[in-house]
């Protein structure tokens, strides 16, 4: 997980109390509720420039930091491909 991702995620986990975020960190347990999940999505768009596709917005994606990171990476990849095509 890259530093910018972790930095974006941290304020959305009010019960983290200084613990380190790992791939296994359960997001719901650390306080990410459904309202905050939306805010987090917007924050990821702003800081990393990725937009998670509708298909990725299932409970599983928000289950752990690792899952959300994987979805973010996949979306980054997809965005890169789209950008590439556009620049041709």
């Amino acid at each position, binding site marked *: 997980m890259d530093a910018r991702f972790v930095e974006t995620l941290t304020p959305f986990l009010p019960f983290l109390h200084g613990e380190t975020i790992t791939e296994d960190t359960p997001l*719901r347990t650390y306080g990410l509720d*459904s309202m905050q999940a939306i805010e987090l999505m917007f924050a990821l768009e702003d800081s990393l420039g990725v937009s998670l596709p*509708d298909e990725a917005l*299932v409970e599983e994606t928000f289950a752990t930091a690792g899952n959300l990171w994987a979805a973010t990476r996949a979306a980054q990849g997809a965005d890169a491909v789209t950008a590439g095509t556009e620049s041709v």
Partner: protein
Amino acid sequence: MSAPAQAAPAPAGFSSALSASLRAEVDQVAALAARHATDHDDRAEFPLAVLDALRPRLLGLLVPTRYGGPGGSVDDLVDVTIELGRADMSTAMVFAMHCQQVAAIAGHAGPRLAAELLPEIAAGRMYLASVTTEAGKGGHLMSARAELGARDGLLEIDRFAPVVTGGLHADGYLITMRSPQARSDGEISLVFARRDQVEVAQRGTWNPLGMRASHSIALQLTGRVPEDQVIGEHGAFRRIAMNTFGPLAHLGWSAAWLGTASGALARVVSVLRGPERSRSDFSSELLLTRLSTARQRLDTVHAMVRYTAGAVRRAVEEDADLSHPRHQLLVNALKLTASEQCHRAIDDLVTALGMRHGYLKDSPTGLERALRDLRSAALNYSNDRLHLADGRLTLLDQEVRYA
């Protein structure tokens, strides 16, 4: 799409493959519920005789065949609940909410617990009550205040439950609580407690506007249960709620409301066409329009119930993820629509029929009780709360695709 060539014609009221003998049983229970309904409503008493009639086969409807049940589907649940609702909404709710608990056990309990409970449910010995509402958080399903204790391999339950349908008569409870040492209110476990494992103390009395026979009293539950009575694992309730609890609750409730409103409309038509026919002015455009509007509302709800049941059944068969916003939105929209439209339909009929057959308790139309019962629909998991959730889900489904 080709129609199945040799499908047996479904008898009136049933769309699913429910066996003929089960159907006959549903008719008998519905007749019994109809006979007792006025009495239990008057006295705000739980319909124990009706529960006993549900026990032999219907309480086990959703138990899979490998555990000795008939392996009923979500469509069967809808069919049976509508038929019971035609007779008595409290009975239909008791049945539908029990089935919701059964589905949670069948879908998510560990093998030991499933092997213990499901055969008992199939045998009619285990009527399950639901404990999700909590003081302080209202109906907010995805949060819990009271925490499970964990000591010596046992889980300690000490839980105030302000609304438990049939709570004094249940053989077991599925209870939501904060997981042991939870970090946040969102970490919730669903735990099973057998009646003899907990002390069940009634708090207060039950004297509501409607749903009087549901006997949804306040209870304090205290006791200790083995660790493996957690359904799924600790913290799994969110997943269970999205995939099973939520969909089946909204489908079951909506079927109960639709059944109630359908039964009432049927009785209205029968009064209008009956011996007092000459008292009605069938050329009245107001009367015709009100009948039409009521029927239109019910056909809308019926179409949504059937469509949603199909979507949920397919998702279960394909092991698809019901947590996707478009699925949640469909299931929630069903609840919102059914709760509003069934109530409105009956309200319209009261206006259409007027004082005598619309407002008096002893009219054979039963509109008075149906209206009081259906008033609970919007409260039973508050529509306001559901709209807030749906607003968030709408933001998540940018492309606006439908389940």
